[in-house]
């Protein structure tokens, strides 16, 4: 049934309810922190010290262990992986572990759950280190209690046991249940070795599957807060529209509480959701809409080249211009990647309860702390006065509408002085989420007389606006835009080196990533221009775009050098793990070497295969894929018939979880490559629903074959994005193999493919 949440009045009440009692924190405070605590004592300590075991591991009197992480389950299986990590490090059964995810009153600040960085954070350090230190502390406590040397004790099944006499034991509950460790994490307590793992590496069923299938999970959409009202945002017709007047309702809305207006933000708050839907649908608002956004992607790409760009010089090795002059063959190609949607199944939803000097926000955000900061800035409160509690939403794949809906709710709650729930519509989510960034990528490559790659000259332009919440308040998000806290336009800036940030985002192909300088002359420039629409991280942000270009271009170079594309890659890949991925995928797919497209077959259907391989962000795991396609030469329709993927992210925590992630990446990647593109009309984005934004359906699924490579002694990286990053170029290369048409612009719609075939 739907749950009713009473906001915990204090940390103590909350802990009573959760079965584990801890007394208030007593960590030494700096003067600033002490003042902050004094100022906000009424709403709980809100001070978490990630250097204390107690911030990560809580043992209840009943011996159950609660782990507290600053990361969240987004449907990826992270919660289960965290439980596996804690179970092995603490020697506690999986079923005795509960997880508290991302709550600014209780969990450490681990930033956002994004970028496939979560296991990477909590396996080599973070949670696992805290568990190792907790285990040592429990052994030390037992040594005292049992009067035995610590060296003679071990842990099993939630208890410390004498190795000599198993009757001499003390359970964790007996040792510390309901009390604090009060021990600082040293970072020096050794963690277990992979050979000692019992559940890491096992295909554990995700702990939340049953609740999800039985609809018992408390999604944000199901959360109800006592006294809660329902708010909806009345969206302007275009991104540049400004409010002229709010002209009221044609028919009285019986349960209307308030029309909230702040600059261009118009919201309606009603007592019931049905009332709020009605009010938002019928309210008359006059807008002034100057338009001024591109009418389609052709115009967008043309304009992106002329907008003021900030440029970063990410690599400048050797002498690229000279090498290109001296090259026997120079290839140049430009690739285009469109705006795409996260397109979450459930439109975003959030609840906020804003009072004079405190606020609570229940949100499906990927980062409770960054959202807390944005909400505090927007509401005029301190960070400590805002309590953000994570509640799972529908899959987000990056920065969907979750944070904006949370700020919408906070704004309206402040205006009406009561808790407000905001449920976005499908159109809100499609039009006002942060789109995946469009990108133009131009590459020049030079081959010498022997077909060696001697020059690589890469330049991209990405259009970007706003982003994740954080210290700029609401300015990064549509809520801030509407209330007039917009961000300043970007100023042009010539390429600077070293880069402004360290984000290389796969601008460099894997082939350049070697200190031996396998491509001796390489230049990489990344440019950013202002986007007319909000953009933000979407599963493999910038990496999928850049890898589409890099891996298509490698295919072009291979054919120009008259070398099979797999063989060509293996010549230049310096990293043995990536090379291994390429070999494994090629073998699993039964790759047949050839140069140039497959000889034309009779009939309307042409078949082909292509490869793409990359190292995510240059440091975060590897994937290689072979895509096999059928192209209908008459209609231009591409069908991906099979995707073979090899995948290496170091040690595998949960093979079942990774398999689900890789399958999801492949299906999502095929969808993005063949179908997904946001439509524009000069005023707004016009993909408002699933008709105007097409996605892959069951009858279009490719066959999938996955080879997971486990490396127990290598630290784990993420699995959320790798496989997807290697999909688009594999498909485009397969279309080339099938037809001889090189298509450098996504998605590969029938019209685009048909036009390319005509030009052959």
């Amino acid at each position: 049934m739907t749950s009713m949440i009473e906001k915990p009045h204090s940390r103590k009440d909350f802990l009573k309810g959760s079965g584990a009692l801890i007394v208030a924190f007593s960590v030494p405070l700096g003067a600033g922190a002490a003042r902050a605590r004094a100022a906000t004592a009424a709403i709980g300590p809100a001070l978490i010290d990630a250097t204390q075991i107690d911030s990560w591991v809580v043992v209840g009197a009943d011996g159950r262990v609660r782990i507290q992480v600053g990361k969240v389950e987004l449907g990826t299986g992270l919660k289960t992986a965290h439980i596996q990590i804690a179970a092995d490090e603490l020697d506690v059964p999986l079923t005795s572990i509960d997880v508290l995810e991302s709550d600014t009153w209780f969990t450490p600040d681990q930033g956002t759950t994004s970028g496939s960085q979560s296991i990477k954070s909590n396996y080599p350090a973070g949670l696992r280190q805290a568990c190792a230190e907790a285990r040592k502390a429990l052994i030390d406590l037992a040594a005292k209690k049992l009067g035995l040397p610590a060296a003679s004790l071990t842990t099993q099944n939630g208890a410390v046991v004498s190795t000599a006499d198993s009757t001499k034991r003390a359970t964790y509950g007996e040792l510390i249940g309901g009390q604090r460790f009060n021990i600082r994490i040293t970072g020096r307590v050794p963690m277990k070795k992979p050979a000692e793992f019992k559940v890491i590496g096992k295909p554990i069923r995700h702990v939340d599957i049953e609740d999800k299938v039985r609809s018992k999970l408390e999604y944000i959409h199901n959360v109800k807060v006592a006294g809660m009202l329902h708010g909806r945002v009345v969206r302007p017709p275009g991104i540049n529209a400004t409010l002229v007047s709010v002209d009221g309702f044609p028919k009285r809305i019986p349960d209307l509480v308030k029309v909230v207006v702040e600059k261009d933000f118009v919201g309606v708050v009603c007592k019931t959701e049905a009332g709020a839907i009605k009010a938002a649908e019928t309210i008359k608002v006059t807008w002034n809409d100057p338009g001024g956004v591109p009418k389609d992607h052709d115009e967008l790409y043309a304009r992106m080249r002329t907008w003021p760009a900030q440029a970063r010089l990410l690599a400048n090795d050797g002498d690229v211009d000279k090498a290109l002059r001296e090259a026997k063959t120079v290839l140049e190609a430009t690739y285009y990647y469109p705006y795409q949607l996260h397109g979450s199944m459930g439109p975003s939803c959030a609840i906020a309860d804003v009072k004079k000097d405190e606020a609570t926000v229940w949100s499906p955000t990927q980062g409770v702390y960054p959202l807390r900061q944005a909400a505090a800035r927007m509401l005029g409160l301190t960070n400590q006065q805002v309590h953000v509690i994570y509640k799972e939403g529908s899959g987000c794949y990056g920065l969907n509408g979750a944070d904006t809906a949370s700020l919408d709710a906070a704004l309206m709650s402040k205006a009406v002085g009561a808790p407000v729930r905001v449920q976005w519509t499908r159109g809100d989510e499609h039009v006002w989420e942060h789109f995946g960034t469009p990108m133009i990528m131009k590459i020049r490559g030079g081959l010498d007389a022997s077909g060696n790659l001697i020059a690589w000259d890469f330049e991209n332009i990405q259009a970007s606006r706003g982003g994740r919440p954080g210290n700029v308040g609401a300015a990064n998000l549509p809520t801030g835009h509407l209330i007039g806290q917009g961000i300043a336009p970007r100023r042009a800036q010539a390429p600077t080196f070293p880069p402004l940030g360290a984000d290389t985002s796969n601008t460099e192909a894997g082939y350049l990533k070697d200190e031996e300088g396998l491509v001796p002359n390489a230049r990489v420039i990344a440019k950013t221009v202002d986007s007319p629409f909000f953009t933000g991280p979407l599963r493999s942000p910038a990496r999928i775009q850049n890898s589409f270009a890099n891996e298509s271009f490698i295919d072009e170079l291979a054919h120009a050098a008259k070398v099979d594309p797999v063989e060509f890659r293996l010549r230049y890949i310096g990293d043995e793990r990536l090379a291994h991925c390429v070999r494994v995928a090629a073998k699993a797919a039964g790759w047949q070497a050839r140069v140039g497209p497959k000889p034309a077959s009779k009939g309307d259907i042409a078949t082909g295969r292509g490869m793409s391989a990359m190292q995510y962000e240059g440091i975060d795991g590897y994937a290689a894929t072979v895509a096999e396609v059928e192209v209908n030469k008459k209609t231009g329709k591409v069908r991906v018939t099979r995707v073979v993927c090899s995948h290496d992210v170091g040690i595998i925590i949960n093979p079942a979880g990774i398999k689900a992630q890789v399958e999801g990446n492949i299906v999502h990647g095929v969808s993005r490559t063949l179908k997904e593109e946001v439509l524009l009309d000069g005023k707004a984005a016009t993909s408002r629903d699933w008709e105007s934004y097409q996605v892959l359906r069951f009858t279009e699924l490719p066959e999938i074959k996955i080879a997971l490579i486990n490396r127990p002694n290598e630290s784990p990286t993420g699995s959320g994005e790798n496989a997807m990053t290697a999909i688009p170029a594999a498909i485009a290369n397969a279309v080339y193999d099938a037809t001889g048409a090189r298509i450098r612009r996504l998605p590969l719609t029938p019209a685009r493919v048909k036009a390319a075939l005509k030009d052959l």
Partner: protein
Amino acid sequence: MATSVKLTVNGKRHTVQSAPDTKLLTVLREELGLQGPRFGCGLSQCGACTVHVEGEAVRSCIVPASAMAGKKVTTLEGLGDEHPVVEAFIAERAAQCGYCINGMVMQSIVFLKKTPRPTEAQIKKALNANICRCGTHYAILKAVKRAARTAA
């Protein structure tokens, strides 16, 4: 203005106050507190809100509650314990974020009643109007096949 509508949901009779155009989904979720059917699009395009009305799969986000007067509505909560399709989805781990799964389950149940021994192609066709964004499709297909085997 609101009128009273009598409908049977999961075997229980309810009288709800509903405006003529208030959707069945809104009544199920907001008035009856059910959370099986989910709001996904409000346009009958994604399937997340699917319920059974007189044994047929219906997208509750577009049908007015007032049109359900006197009809038997079943949501996921009303399927009873250990429904073979629900159990098959759990056994096959057929959920990532899980938001679409209500629709996948409810659609599959009606499909399997009519097509107890389906081919994979038939299952794909039957679920083609249900959207999943996590890419859980293969686990879902396996679950429907398992449910068919279990029931056979």
